[in-house]
């Protein structure tokens, strides 16, 4: 992945995250990325970005979140960088599998869903920032 990434930054609110997701989708569509990979990238941003918004700040607003996207044969890589409180999603435990509706717990499925749609997920704490990188498979062509 030697090319410079498609990069953008947005403030930590839901509308801006939605806008950022749209821009990333438009860019990747223009790059010819297939529907399955487009969907996976969108899910990554919705889940991981959503988590940062929900848990990362105590009401502080206007904090920048950075997205970088690289494309290469067979792969799309997405990196999300924020200055919220330290949070490592790779340490998040898998929710217990419920055998019935009555046992099912509501919530806790986000990160496990990302894991299933992505090839890899790596977290790094960089000084005062969280950085998470996710790789998603894309089909050739």
């Amino acid at each position, binding site marked *: 992945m030697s090319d410079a990434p498609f990069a953008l930054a947005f403030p930590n609110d839901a509308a801006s995250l939605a806008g950022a997701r749209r821009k990333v989708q438009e860019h990747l569509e223009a790059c010819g990325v297939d529907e399955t990979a487009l969907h996976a990238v969108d899910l990554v941003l919705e889940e991981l970005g959503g988590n940062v918004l929900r*848990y990362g700040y*105590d*009401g502080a607003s206007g904090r920048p979140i950075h997205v970088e996207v690289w494309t290469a044969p067979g792969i799309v890589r997405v990196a999300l960088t924020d200055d919220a*409180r330290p*949070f490592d999603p790779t340490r998040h*435990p898998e929710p217990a599998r419920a055998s019935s509706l*009555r046992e099912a717990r509501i919530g806790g499925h986000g990160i496990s869903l990302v894991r299933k749609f992505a090839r890899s997920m790596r977290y790094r704490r960089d000084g005062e920032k969280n950085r998470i990188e996710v790789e998603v498979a894309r089909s050739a062509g």
Partner: protein
Amino acid sequence: MSGASGVGKTVQFSTRRSAPPQLAHYLTVVQGVTIERAVPVTAETLILGRDPSRAFHLPDSDVSRSHCEVFLVGDDVYVRDLGSTNGTFVDGVRVAQATPLRVSSRLEVGRHTFRHELLSPEDVARHQQFAKDLELARRHVEALLPAPRASGPVRTDWCFVPSSVLGGDALGYHDLGGGRLALYLLDVCGHGVASAMYSSVVFNAVRCQTLPDTDFGDPAAVLARLNDAFQMDAHNDMYFSIFYGVLDPASRSLRYSSAGHPPAIVLGADGRIRSRLVRKNPPIGAMPRRVFGQDEARLEPGDRLFVFSDGAFEIRDTEGRERGLEDFERELVATASGKLPGDPRRVYERVCAVTGTDLLLDDFTLLAVELDASASA
């Protein structure tokens, strides 16, 4: 600057400045019952748990009897899990050993969420004032409930326990003329202050009969009129379920209709379930321009009608298992003693015993109406 903080904990002499003298550490309730509470955190350990003897008692079946402890060391607040079943979470991350709970961080225990805040005496006074306001509102709501009727051809009793001081349920009955009794129980979606306000508005429309051109002896008409007046789109996405009945003791007929509401139960004099009364309409406000049907039940002397809302049975037991309507019906049959006064309260206490708490997370509302056993057969 510090003192002994309990057996087994090391005393820390903090070299950082302590909180400005007028601010003190508190846990404020962000989500859960007792929403108005602000609890001080001091060097003395505060144990949060379901056990009523705990200093910070949480009537939540997802909370262990002794779930976690919170304490102050110097100027820092720490939280330690006490081997709870469902875990203790700080800012979404599960914790076990003593973990710092920074100012403005969130502590999640069962279905309750708290925030660590530094509060001034004025802030605390505001919290307490809010608690007082809620209590006044609660008394106002309770004053509108009709007195139980201990004698006469139709006897009544009820149990009304909103979760978190104010709730979205309401119940009532009033004479319609000709010996008939209108009886009703409604449940606004959600619970808390907003639901309670909406509930009051709707309840008054029924109790004071202020819906225009409405025959309050006609349950289907009452529901249709309520549905016209209270559509979701025009009322901040709120909707409600209702059971509305008109009982004529002379003919022993009960005309009724319901919308989005659990079935009302009729227990015979022998204590067994004789019938379940329900109409499968969507809740009021969910869909415009509906025709609501109604049914008529013939009651026998000594029959008891129990009307209730979902909060009575949508509960979890001490093993974390979710209970449902069938479980509640069994509890009702087992508890209803045949002597009406006190039955609703007894059922409530039984449900509390099942959940292992003394306060439920949703409003508990139960109305019992009994047709005199000596009524003409």
